[in-house]
């Protein structure tokens, strides 16, 4: 009996542990949350919004690929990194796009098969935005004036921003405006006009939802605000109304696809968006052109200045603005420290463009200098001092960003200076351009406000530097204003003049070396010395140069024999060789404005994606 009672007892115990119904297989992770929890809570939702911006700093995203290597070559800037003699071979993977010779080959930097490629990162940002938009709409009760409403606006704006960049670099792309599901993994490309329409509508939805600058969530211009969305809307409308490279069989054509009516609508939306920013009065032109970039390097991100919107880089940690585009400068242990040997110099300036500036234009010397900064024991024995070291005509350096201005010393390639996406001058010029198209009368004043600031004039009164508002003048003015700011290339594209303008720049360089055309009065010889007052700023001895402006023809070594002047032949047929001039592009810029879709993306697309423009797959 006992035996059986014990057996029975054990059976009972073990059967008691049986749990066999299907629902007991439902499990949950305690450290992760689902959509309904996240998007019904403001604090948690803000974390999901942060994730949308987080893409910017990721490897191969804006940090080191998208922003940095896309905006060249143009009629005013070129990317360095290849030899200056023919025949050119793109020596670094990054050069292909700049030389308009992109391929689908793995060796091409944009086609690396790494899962973290720029295309995928942008779509990852879009997916994060899609999740937030769907989630907030469903669970968050977003209304205008509420924080949830602002978050929805932010997600819509960032999605539009990422889409606009995708279109800028790849043209037609898949339209993904809902979170990806198994059914929507493989999508074909959509016509970019459809996407333009969608994101224009999105921004129009977002603007009333977004907080204006200065609110708790918009104190920093690194987050989107109402005016940032308006500026983006205007820029997108100008692009949508303009030229772009379209597929034509296996070839590419440059064309406008918007109908005249649609163009008019787009220009109207753009102008009114700009008008709202201007009339809102939250931003203004900085009286000092230089100060815009100084403040940028100082990581000042408060609202109410000229800069309206910046990419959110973390100072000192993420992003390579100065180490890529800064004025070339060597490690000095003060401004550039640690492992970083030097910074800057990836963009340089087409030499003739320097002479296109009016010498009185304050923007010229902020934008372009003929020197770099390094130790030079031949000039200065003191090894603690840097020297502004004169380069050559083909190494005119972009100088808008300078290591010595950066808030924290640069000790790695990640300086973390945030690129300005939108500044007030751009809003004024976009207004002027849209107004010109629409035949309005207000544009001229806004156009000339930008010029007056450049020449140090009061911006609200007519000055002698004013010019009539024409499209050609706008084209030229935007070059002077935005040189080096990764804007020029896309302007030229939407005006449909990318190739012709680069060709014009090549002709200009030819004129320059031959003292012909517009460059007849440019002095051929320059004279330089270290400044006699031993001026030292930022630990560097400054250079004094004579002969860069028209009319500076005096031989200083004769007129001031004891002045320490050194004479240098600056412009000659050998200082600008054919190999340099003729090699601003290798492929046809009008056929290779857009990148091919990477091989890796194509092969994982289940046959839904193919490359146009004769790129092959």
């Amino acid at each position, binding site marked *: 009996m006992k035996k059986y009672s014990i057996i029975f007892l054990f059976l009972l115990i073990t059967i008691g542990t049986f749990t066999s119904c299907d629902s007991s297989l439902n499990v949950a992770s305690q450290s992760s949350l689902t959509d309904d929890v996240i998007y019904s809570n403001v604090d948690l939702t803000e974390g*999901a919004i942060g994730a949308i911006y987080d893409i910017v700093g990721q490897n191969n995203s804006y940090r080191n690929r998208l922003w940095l290597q896309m905006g060249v070559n143009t009629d005013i800037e070129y990317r360095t990194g290849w030899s200056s003699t023919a025949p050119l071979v793109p020596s670094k993977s990054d050069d292909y796009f700049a030389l308009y010779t992109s391929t689908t080959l793995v060796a091409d930097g944009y086609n690396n098969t790494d899962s973290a490629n720029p295309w995928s990162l942008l779509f990852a940002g879009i997916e994060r935005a899609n999740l937030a938009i769907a989630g907030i709409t469903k669970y968050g009760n977003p209304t205008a004036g509420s924080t949830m409403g602002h978050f929805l606006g932010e997600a819509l704006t960032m999605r539009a921003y990422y889409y606009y960049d995708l279109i800028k670099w790849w043209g037609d792309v898949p339209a993904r405006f809902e979170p990806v599901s198994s059914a929507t993994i493989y999508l074909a490309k959509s016509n970019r006009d459809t996407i333009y329409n969608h994101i224009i509508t999105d921004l129009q939805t977002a603007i009333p939802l977004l907080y204006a600058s200065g609110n708790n969530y918009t104190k920093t211009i690194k987050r989107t605000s109402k005016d940032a969305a308006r500026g983006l809307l205007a820029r997108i409308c100008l692009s949508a109304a303009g030229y772009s490279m379209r597929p034509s069989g296996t070839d590419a054509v440059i064309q406008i696809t918007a109908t005249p009516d649609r163009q008019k609508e787009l220009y109207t939306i753009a102008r009114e968006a700009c008008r709202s920013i201007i009339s809102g009065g939250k931003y203004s032109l900085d009286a000092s052109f230089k100060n815009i970039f100084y403040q940028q390097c100082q990581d000042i991100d408060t609202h109410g200045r000229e800069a309206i919107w910046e990419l959110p880089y973390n100072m000192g940690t993420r992003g390579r603005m100065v180490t890529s585009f800064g004025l070339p400068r060597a490690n000095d242990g003060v401004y550039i420290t640690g492992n970083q040997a030097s910074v800057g110099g990836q963009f340089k300036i087409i030499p003739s463009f320097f002479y296109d500036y009016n010498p009185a234009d304050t923007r010229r010397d902020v934008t372009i200098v003929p020197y770099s900064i390094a130790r030079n024991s031949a000039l200065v024995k003191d090894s603690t001092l840097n020297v502004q070291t004169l380069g050559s005509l083909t190494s005119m350096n972009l100088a808008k960003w300078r290591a010595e201005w950066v808030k924290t010393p640069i000790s790695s390639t990640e300086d973390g200076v945030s690129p300005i996406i939108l500044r007030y001058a751009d809003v004024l010029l976009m207004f002027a351009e849209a107004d010109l198209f629409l035949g309005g009368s207000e544009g001229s004043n806004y156009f000339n406000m930008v010029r007056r600031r450049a020449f140090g004039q009061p911006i609200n009164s007519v000055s002698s530097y004013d010019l009539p508002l024409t499209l050609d003048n706008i084209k030229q003015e935007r070059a002077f204003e935005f040189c080096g700011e990764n804007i020029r290339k896309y302007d030229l594209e939407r005006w449909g003049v990318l190739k012709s303008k680069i060709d014009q720049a090549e002709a200009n360089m030819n004129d320059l070396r031959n003292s012909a055309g517009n460059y007849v009065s440019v002095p051929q010889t320059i004279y330089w010395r270290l400044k006699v007052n031993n001026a030292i700023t930022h630990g560097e001895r400054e250079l004094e140069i004579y002969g860069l402006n028209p009319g500076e023809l005096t031989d200083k070594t004769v007129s001031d024999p004891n002045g320490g002047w050194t004479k240098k032949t600056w412009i000659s047929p050998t200082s600008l060789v054919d190999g340099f001039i003729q090699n601003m592009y290798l492929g046809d810029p009008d056929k290779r404005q857009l990148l091919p879709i990477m091989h890796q993306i194509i092969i994982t697309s289940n046959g839904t994606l193919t490359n146009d423009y004769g790129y092959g797959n």
Partner: protein
Amino acid sequence: MKNNKKHFVLLFLFTFSLALFAQQRQIKGTVKDEKGEAIIGATIIVKGTTTGTTTDIDGNFTLNLPAAAKTLLVSFVGMEKKEVDVKNNNFNVVLTDNSIALNEVVAIGYGTQRKKDLTGSVSSVSEKALRDIPVSSAAEAITGKLPGVQVTTTEGSPDAQIKIRVRGGGSITQSNTPLYIVDGFPMDDISNIAPSEIQTIDVLKDASSTAIYGSRGANGVIIVTTKAGKDGKISISYTGYAGFKQTTKQLKVLTPFQFAQKQYEGAVLNNSVATDYDAYFGSFNDMGLYNYVNGTNWQNEIIGRTGNTRNHNFTISGGSKQVNYNVNLNRLDDKAIMYMSNFNRTNASLKLNLTPWDWFKGDFSARYSVTVVNGPGANDVSGSEKSTSDSRIKNAVIFTPLPLKNLTTQDDNSETISNLADPFTQMVDNDRYQKTNLLTLNTGFTIKPSQSWSFSSTFGYSLNTKEDDRYFGLTTYFVTNNSLKRNNAIAPACTINNTNNETFTNANTISFKKDNFIKNHNISIMVGQENLLRTYHNILSDIEAFPSSFEARDTWKLTTQGTTVSTNNFYGTQEKMISFFSRLNYDYKGIYYLSATFREDGSSKFGAGNRWGEFPSVSGAWRLSDEGFMKNSQKWLSNLKLRASYGTAGNNNIPNGSINRVYTSGTSIYLPSTMPTQVWTDGSTLVNPDLKWETTITRNVGLDYGFFNNRISGTLDFYKNSTKDLLLLVPLGGVGYTSQWQNTGHTSNQGGEFSINIALIQKKDFTLNFGFNISINRNKVIDMGGLASYAGNEGWTSMTSASNSYLVTPGQPVGLIYGYVSDGMYSADDFTWNATSKKWVAKTGIVDNSSLDGFSWGPGAMKLKDIAGAFDAQGNPIPDGKITDADRTIIGNTNPKHFGSFNFSATYKGWDATINCNWVYGNNIYNANKIEMTSIYYKDRNMLSIMNNAYTQIDWTTGSRVTDPATLTAMNANASMWSAPNGSYAITSWAIEDGSFLRISNLTIGYTLPKKLLKILAMQQMRFYASINNLYTFTKYSGYDPEVDTRRSSPLTPGVDYSSYPKSHSYNLGVNITF
């Protein structure tokens, strides 16, 4: 009732003693073995009584025999029991060894079965094979011993991961690790079990045997049974060994003078002698001085030390009819050959078996182990490796052998200098501490209400905690690129990763077994049910910006001195599984066998509707040798059995939570503090609510044979496994996620296995045995659900021309290498010298390899075959005159054609000797070291000594560049290597080497003291031995060791040798003592 029983027993004893007194006679006899050697301590019992005795030192015994005695039972451990009829009056008994396998019992999952009765394919290693050889891990002990099981020790470090594959693997993207069952309890690996604890290891290979484990049985099941106490008096044993070890090989590098020459040549080719050579090495004219410099042999410093090993093991075991116990204590200390690297492991285990009543059996076992691994190792394959630029061995091989002026180790200007760090600093900067505690508790009981029925229930619990502390010093990639700064300077960082896994299982089975159910029909049935619950908890802290003086242990202990970037206290998704299973075994007269199993598993990893998987299997066997018509052949044929099986097994080897979208939080280090930096993301893998079980169908036919009284025995098996609904991590391009789990595709493995054991000599004082096995497996991917190819990135470099070198395509196996075909080098006649530009200009028609050769492109540069890039009119690929990605093709296969092992074991009187050899044949190795170590992409790195015979353009008497083609050709008539390329690293057929090897993996010579002497010492056994592990390897492979697999985070990239921890020879002396 209790009293009743007591009375009954007393009554019984009383009657019995009466009988004892009735009549007696004394008998004498001897017990010997087959060789005529006396057996000391054999037990002789009168059958049915407790009367008995044991033999003395000469094998003699005397026994008072009760009159009623009819039969004597003679037994001895390890020998067949023998019954002797007392009527014969011949008491000279000969016992035979029972090592002949037929009556051996093997574990088959929720039960055991006599090997004789098996219908499936099962391989086993017995304690005997494990006992005599000093190895530090169980997996190492079975290397080469089991046909169909490939064991790869991936590196030489003491804690190296050991990769075990049973008949290849069906998955493409997932690990094909088999299921480990230790004493009935599922485990993740068996590395923390002391080999001395193990009784047997059984490997279930086909579905008829694995199907009982249903899910996770698809990659085979390895069942480890630990030792239990035995009836008899208490036995105390000690086994121990100690020894030392040294690295087997160093890679030869250039001497300081040759090193300077290479750097000079690179500078000349780059027209940069002043900046690249003079600044570091001084003037060319003084180069000869480097002949007088010895330089540092960094390999000696980092991996050249003499390591040592000490292992102590105590076992106490014993028991009675009611209680058996086995207590085991083991301690292993290992000082590795690598600087800073050591390892120790402590195991304690207790196993209790209680049989209070003959119908009840209770089992309890507890095992605890602590493993500590110190030191950075060669690579961090799993976990926190941030970049291969921190790989340690690379630095030890090619760091500059002499201090160079202007070369500071922290200089990060990779364009001009070596991008390496001083090897010692680098070791210190990558320090790591890993401590694993594993506690396993098992308890269970079996009730047998009758002879036929039994019910058993087991409960198991395991707690696995791991602390993994990783330090990142100033030279590491992570610190220089991605971590927070302190006062604007780079600063040390660390990660502290604590993981906590718990597993709980409960299995209940009811069995019915009846021989002669109907006359000659034997049947056994088992039905059961099992629950499994796993939880996962992890705390990962990333702490950065420590004071720069902080070393590893400071950062781990004084964490508040840094800035905590993130602390993630993560409770993972639980894993639950509910299973029902049954097995039917039937046989007729022990000649015809039929077995069927069925298992149904429900897994929480799948969504409702897809959770349940059904896995049936059926198998049969025919013991031909026992057929009546085979009677005449019994003289020579002792065993012949044919087997066949067909069945399915499942696989749910995907991460938990792959079906529902969840968000996890993290800290964005990219965003400024004014932004929301605590971000929620849903990961890079897109959820798939429709996932279901992957199923593997296996088919097996085999035969077991034995000839001449089993002096020759073995098995032969053929199989074909196909996997469908493959759980594949499908790569997604540019949709916002990098991948998604899908049930897609179809793979197959087919092959055969053969083993043979021959008792060559069986004499009294001399025995010689030979064992041999060979396995062949062919893996094939049949389709991948529409994917045309699947790239595997070995990831040792980010350069695209040496990345994604593994490509899986339908119709081909996993593990093919895809790269450029080496075509020797360019000759001086391929170029003309342009004196103005100081460059070589290629003649027309010369294949352009400038992108990979860089400035070295010219005479003597590495040449590759141009095979594609353009297309002819029919659209077929044709050469395009330049080396591009299109020129990559399949250049290697990492799958072996066959592998196996053989061994000899001999005994002569008290001496024993064993030699074990194993081989792998026909596989390729991707020698990534060789690519990096012959390139001058990074300057001021030393190179392999083969580069001393490289093509040169330098006239070494003057230092000037030779540009005359004829002179160059004459100078380089004997050059065997191209000049060091300066362009990107490239995967070429030159770096793909034959990985075949034959290794003498162990040689052991032992001496067992004679029993007479032991009797005096009051010991049962004492054996001394000397042993050499990894004695010699026959191979053509040029790297450290051909058994290598360093890029293991993805199963797509086997056989890469990149910065692998070299293997060592070890020499040990040991002793086994039993009291």
